[in-house]
């Protein structure tokens, strides 16, 4: 009891950066979390990695992407001369003969860009791959951080253009889904397991696309007065409700698009015959 009443003097204390900066509480551990904080980023990284591996293989394979009436979503629309002919299908020879590699590359840029700049995926890979941060209140390993303030990450701001493009791509995939109601001889009135896979996929693609933050902004978020725009207000609320599940939709649609492609692969490579419902 009764120690000196004047506060002690302060001396600088050697230390590092971040949570070890000089003035902060002296705690050696970079974080004190006791839960399994690494599980979520690890699972995210694993999931994304698996998709990248799978899609790279399929995109460069340039084979087994069409089994009438199904066209793999990785190859639709197909825009080079080396595309397989799909009767009334989503091919148009815009690029001509000089395009020698897989035509999937031309079109995959758009959904890839859309997902790469998506606000959810950004969180997922910044955390999962970049460890920036690995988890909340867990120190990140980088010395310097400028976020999305400069090139290249400032380009994340183009998300909106990819959204516009994603709408077009989703439109083509919708068309493909409609075409999947034909049989392999292009006669209408067919439905196979593939059709169902396509239906589920396109539903997820659309809900993921529509639930995008840019979309939410464009349909109504940019307004200052909802009261003057009742229709856009309702649209904004609808998109907002979907947007709350953006993460879930991002994963589901990622899985479904891979699954749809894989289904086409199985049928096209003859592993499997498309079971018909009618």
């Amino acid at each position, binding site marked *: 009891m009764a120690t000196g009443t004047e506060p*002690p003097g302060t001396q600088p204390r050697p230390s590092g950066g971040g949570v070890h900066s000089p003035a902060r509480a002296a705690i050696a551990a970079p974080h004190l979390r006791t839960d399994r904080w690494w599980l979520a980023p690890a699972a995210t990284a694993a999931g994304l990695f698996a998709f990248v591996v799978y899609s790279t293989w399929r995109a460069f394979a340039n084979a087994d992407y069409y089994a009438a009436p199904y066209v793999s979503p990785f190859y639709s629309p197909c825009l080079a001369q080396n595309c397989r002919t799909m009767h009334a299908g989503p091919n148009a020879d815009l690029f001509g003969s000089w395009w020698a590699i897989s035509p999937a590359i031309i079109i995959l840029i758009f959904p890839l860009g859309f997902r790469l700049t998506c606000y959810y995926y*950004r969180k997922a890979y910044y955390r999962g791959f970049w460890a920036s941060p690995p988890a909340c209140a*867990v120190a990140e390993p980088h010395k310097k951080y400028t976020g*999305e303030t400069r090139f290249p990450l400032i380009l994340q701001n183009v998300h*909106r253009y990819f959204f516009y493009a994603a709408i077009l791509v989703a439109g083509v995939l919708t068309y493909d889904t409609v075409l999947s109601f034909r049989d392999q001889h292009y006669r209408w009135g067919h439905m196979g397991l593939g059709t169902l896979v396509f239906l589920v996929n396109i539903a997820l693609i659309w809900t993921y696309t529509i639930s995008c933050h840019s979309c939410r902004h464009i349909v109504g978020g940019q307004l200052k007065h*909802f009261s003057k725009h009742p229709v856009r207000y309702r649209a904004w609320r609808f998109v907002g409700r979907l947007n709350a599940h953006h993460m879930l939709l991002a994963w589901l649609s990622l899985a479904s698009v891979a699954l749809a492609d894989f289904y086409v692969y199985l049928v096209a490579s003859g592993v499997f015959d498309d079971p018909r419902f009618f």
Partner: protein
Amino acid sequence: MSSYEARFKVWRGDADGGGLKDFRVEVNDGEVVLDIIHRLQATQAPDLAVRWNCKAGKCGSCSAEINGRPRLMCMTRMSVFAPEETVTVTPLRTFPVIRDLVTDVGFNYVKAREVPSFVPPAGLGPGEYRMFQEDVDRPQEFRKCIECFLCQDVCHVVRDHEDNKRAYAGPRFLMRVAELDMHPLDAAEESGLDRKASAQDDHGLGYCNITKCCTEVCPEGIRITDNALIPLKERAVDRKYDPLVWLGSKIGRRRT
């Protein structure tokens, strides 16, 4: 369950240094971490420094890190821990420590001052304001903020990079910019202030990489990232990166 003896580690020290001190302390049914800290003060460490006020999750004073996670001590029930678990309590690790669990949160007050205030609309006197619930819903969500600064604490932009404190306002104050930009009667634009562009130019919106820790720790459940930061980024895109919108705003009278 009635009462048991818990193991606590509480950081004690000041700017010169310090460390985790072990305590054994009684815990009763229904208590929260702040109760235990108070018991330590009353029985074992009378000079243990801690900030608190309302003890009901309304004032945002008792922010700390409990088992490494930023939380309000008054809203962390002891029942979430197993009786044999050691509970570690440290001060916020993003701000300079003053003593024990108390940190210097001055950073936040400096940033608060840098956000230009509400600009009242010209020609409307007190009592003449008319606003509609659907228009005030959005900014009202942000005004639930109790300024506990947990989001500021957890945000890795400043937590892990001291130098960024200069350029970056942090989630709380970017949200404040969003709140004002969404205020139905804010007349900043008429006065020549573009809050959307200034969020990026003056308050460091670009530093945010939307990793959502602010939303995760918010004790008020405000969806900071989805409802404030991302919409603000989109608004900045309107101003700076979207030629269509830019063109539209030049040609038409797109008064929204």
